[in-house]
């Protein structure tokens, strides 16, 4: 009844307010109210230019966009690179990052080694036999460890561009890592399929993805056969991995006169848009691409690796041996596995693929609707290098050195995982997520953070559809995602290592210790402290966040008064707001800076 009474008091107050026609200061706002436009200025309808944002230094902007988030350490390294100008230093930064093997990553490696992971180094057959089992925890251990390792690398790896591009290609070839069939072998997908090709060749990556155990299950290709084709993979191969929906002409005859022809990577004529018939024909071309998965026809072959099958053991066709017709190219009969090889060649060298992939890359780094001129020039490079072993390195480099990259700022925002990693990077957090448990009835910090990421809408490898996490501002600036992102970021300043709510364990982010180290006791004014944390998190001291954060931290002290950072209750008979819980106030101040627009945009 207590809650009923509370609700009674509350709503009667509301009633009286309404009757009086009063709009009190404590009245919650209405989402629909006079003078507010009901529709946002979006996309092509957008008529307002972005305001003149206060700009951080060029190096800070570029690092915010090309890494998992600016940190003062990363920025110091950037500034120490050879070069007479930011542009020269940037070229050197990109060149260095494009050769990740040459970057020592010992601190990150040590952190990974300390995590006690046991599945990340297992071969595919080992994962297959040891983790494709009934026991749920054993079954999902591999994906759970990849999730931990991905987070550790995002925060601590010196090979930031490599990590960002790994994320990009995981999105492009998105799979649901926690799927029953994908989870036990997921380290193979991340380690052997995606990562080796991030700065390599798209055609190679495309075929490696097709053959991977994870994709074979996720999009059902392993069971597709001449008599029973399954078109799931073939459709997404064309719609999501290569030509893209922008090149889908719908349900039309492949010979419809409205369909234009162009030139493929081999210099020969090829149809520019695809129709449903191409999906079915591609599906036929790929029949027989399957796995040694203990199939009833070959029960002895059972290690999870790829195999091409011409026939079932009965002698019936597994592969569809007859002629195929894809994008107006005739495939001769009886070409066996070469059908698939030819298909991947056609798709990887198709001008539509080049445009689609180039647009996605530019969208990742520049803006939601990147300039067509840049997209076209990147697509041209993508096409002309389609057989080069370092095609993706060249393409990535071209995007990052473009003037469009250098000059664009603030029209995108960090996605939730990026916001998390960025906050941890900027604040010098000590976070090593592992599968360790910390006693009965505890909620490990790793589990709490991942669950909060899930509320934000971006837990890693958790997007159920094959199109990958959205990469537009509208998706992540919705109230659902942004509010939960703020909640996560605020929580990061209060959460403890290992078990979030256990005060006997140190904080994940040692905000007090870092503040005390950076500033001598007589320098610890609100202005200095906020300035220090703005530099650490934002790389500059923009308004209004700087002044508002100073006001919050000082409460009723002057901005230049030295604060005593202790954790005491200063209410009661002789209240002293200035000295009231200054340590938690400091942490809350950092939380505010983490939640400001300048920390979230890129």
């Amino acid at each position, binding site marked *: 009844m207590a809650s009923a009474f509370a609700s*009674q008091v509350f*709503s009667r107050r*509301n*009633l009286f307010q309404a009757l009086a026609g009063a709009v009190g200061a404590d009245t*919650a706002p*209405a*989402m*629909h109210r*006079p003078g507010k436009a*009901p*529709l*946002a200025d*979006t*996309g*092509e*309808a957008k008529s307002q230019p*972005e*305001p003149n944002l206060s700009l951080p230094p060029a190096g800070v902007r570029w690092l915010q966009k090309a890494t998992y988030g600016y940190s003062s350490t990363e920025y110091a390294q950037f500034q120490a690179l050879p070069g007479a100008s930011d542009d020269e230093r940037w070229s050197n930064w990109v060149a260095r990052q494009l050769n990740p093997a040459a970057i020592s990553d010992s601190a990150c490696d040590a952190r990974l080694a300390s995590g006690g992971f046991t599945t990340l180094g297992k071969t595919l057959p080992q994962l297959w036999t040891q983790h494709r089992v009934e026991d749920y925890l054993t079954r999902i251990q591999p994906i759970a460890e990849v999730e931990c390792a991905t987070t550790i690398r995002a925060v601590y790896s010196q090979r930031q561009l490599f990590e960002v591009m790994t994320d990009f290609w995981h999105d492009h070839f998105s799979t649901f890592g926690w799927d029953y069939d994908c989870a036990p072998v997921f380290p193979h997908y991340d380690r052997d399929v995606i990562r080796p090709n991030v700065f390599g060749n798209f055609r190679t990556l495309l075929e490696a993805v097709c053959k991977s155990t994870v994709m074979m299950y996720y*999009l*059902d290709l392993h069971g597709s*056969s001449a008599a029973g084709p*399954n078109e*799931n993979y073939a*459709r997404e191969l064309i719609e*999501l991995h290569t030509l893209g*929906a922008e090149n*889908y002409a719908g*349900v039309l005859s492949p010979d419809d006169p409205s369909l234009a022809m162009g030139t493929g990577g081999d210099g020969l004529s090829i149809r520019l848009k695809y129709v*449903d018939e191409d999906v079915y024909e591609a599906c036929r071309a790929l029949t027989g691409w399957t796995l040694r998965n203990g199939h009833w026809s070959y029960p002895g072959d059972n290690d999870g690796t790829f195999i091409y099958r011409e026939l079932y053991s009965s002698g019936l066709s597994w592969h569809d041996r007859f002629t195929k017709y894809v994008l107006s190219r005739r495939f001769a009969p009886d070409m066996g596995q070469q059908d698939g090889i030819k298909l991947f060649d056609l798709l990887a060298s198709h001008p539509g693929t080049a445009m689609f992939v180039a647009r996605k890359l530019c969208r990742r780094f520049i803006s939601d609707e990147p300039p067509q001129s840049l997209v076209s020039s990147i697509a041209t490079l993508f096409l002309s290098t389609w057989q080069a072993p370092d095609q993706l390195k060249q393409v990535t480099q071209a995007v990052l050195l473009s003037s469009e990259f250098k000059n664009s700022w603030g*029209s995108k*925002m960090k996605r939730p995982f990026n916001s998390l990693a960025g906050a941890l990077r900027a604040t010098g957090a000590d976070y090593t997520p592992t599968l360790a448990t910390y006693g009965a009835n505890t909620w490990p910090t790793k589990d709490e953070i991942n669950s909060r990421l899930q*509320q934000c*809408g971006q837990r890693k490898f958790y997007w*159920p*559809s094959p199109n990958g996490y959205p990469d537009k*501002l509208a*998706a992540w*600036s*919705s109230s*659902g995602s*942004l*509010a*939960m992102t*703020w*909640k996560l970021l605020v929580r990061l300043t*209060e959460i403890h290592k290992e078990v979030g709510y256990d005060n006997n364990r140190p904080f994940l982010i040692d905000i007090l210790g870092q503040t005390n180290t950076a500033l001598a006791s007589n320098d610890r004014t609100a202005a200095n402290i906020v300035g220090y944390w703005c530099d650490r998190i934002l790389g500059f001291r923009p308004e209004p966040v700087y002044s508002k*954060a100073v006001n919050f931290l000082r*409460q*009723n002290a002057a901005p230049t008064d030295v604060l005593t950072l202790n954790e005491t*209750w200063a*209410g009661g008979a002789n209240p*002293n*707001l200035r000295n*009231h819980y200054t340590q*938690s*106030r400091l942490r809350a101040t950092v939380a*505010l800076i983490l939640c*400001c*627009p300048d920390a*979230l945009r890129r």
Partner: protein
Amino acid sequence: MFDRRDFLKTCSIGSSALALAAAGKLGFAAERANSYDTLVVVFLRGGMDALSLLSPGGSNPSRGDYETKRPSLKVPLTGTGAGLAIAGDQWRLHPRAPQLRDLYTGNKLAVVLGTGMPAPVTRSHFDAQLNMELGLAGQGNGVGWLARALASAGLPPSVTMPAVSAGSITATALLGSTESITLGSGADFRIDSGSWAWNMEPDFLGTAPAGARGIFSVLPELWTDSGTLEAAGRQTLDALSVVKPIDFDAYAPANGAVYPDTDFADRLKMLAQLIKRDVGLRIATIDLGGWDTHESQGSPVNSYDPFGNKVEELSRGLHAFFTDLNGSAANNYAATTSVVVMSEFGRRVRENDGGGTDHGYGSIMLALGGAVNGGQTYGTFGGLANAQLFEGADVQVTTDYRRVMSEALIRRLRNPNVYYAFPGYSGYAPLGVFQGSDLPPANFDQIFRNGFQA
């Protein structure tokens, strides 16, 4: 904010004399719960296999073709896993959906046959969803059809919470609306994760010295600049303030409704609570994914029945939602709430060799509510013989999904601007799925719109 619903609830707990006096004073009509209708659009993502949810029954001439083309997946007429007969056994609802059958026979649920988007035809999930949710066939400026419906709804000057997209990412149909709240979990939707000493106001003010300010009261001051991100931030701050007073944990479903323990049902329960609080909810979207059954779809004849599991999740969730809202007199929220269930397309008529079905075309829509003319099927079914199929493979689209939605907008939301919600759509022709009178269908007056925005 004037919370009339809370007031009425209060009155029912407290003094009835006060209740009567207040109600008389404010002119409430007791037989109607809310003074406006709520439209809930449930999107089944992945292409729901309509021929399994609603299979041809024993008296349906397509039954023979269905059994031939679905040898292992067919829902049987008798024995284990037999479908639930409706419409004189013209159709069988999936056996895992007895709740939907009960709603149908109770005249609260209607089925529309052969639904889809007539053009362009696409078998891409993402294209089809985009086309349907933007409501204008591939062309778009990133504004969804429900966002346009809301913007042209002729709302009173102030409405607390006119639209909710139940999830962490906004449904495309509501993209572009500045008035919509995207809300995964109401109970979690508050920034209360900071230190207790500086957390949510007014929580910490009881112990803090006078003049103290907490995190949440300062946060809005950081988001005052103009700019796209800042505008989104302010919308989020508005949403947080609007949602904050609501105690979601304390909510008790009414009328014996039992929500199953699923995300889908949790979100329906959240919507039911918002509807009962009279926050002004006109439009809500909610997703249920997992319908892309290319392989091992399962069958109700066997214990392995993944499709049936999804059906049960849908059926039990919708039933709980309807029951919860279906009180009497002033608690009859079901009378002002209409649910429409749709998917981006149906699946191929012939099953594949992997025990699944590939992407198809024609689907079905469900309409549920107290103001639905239920217990009937609407539209025509194209048949399952080879010559009757679209491209020899799929169920024909015989009812434009916009026809059903337009009727809901006009008859229930009283918004005539269906040609604004669906640019390029014409010839409004209600099927009679919803109760209510028609209004002349219209395009939204752009002059009015511009004035509205100024």
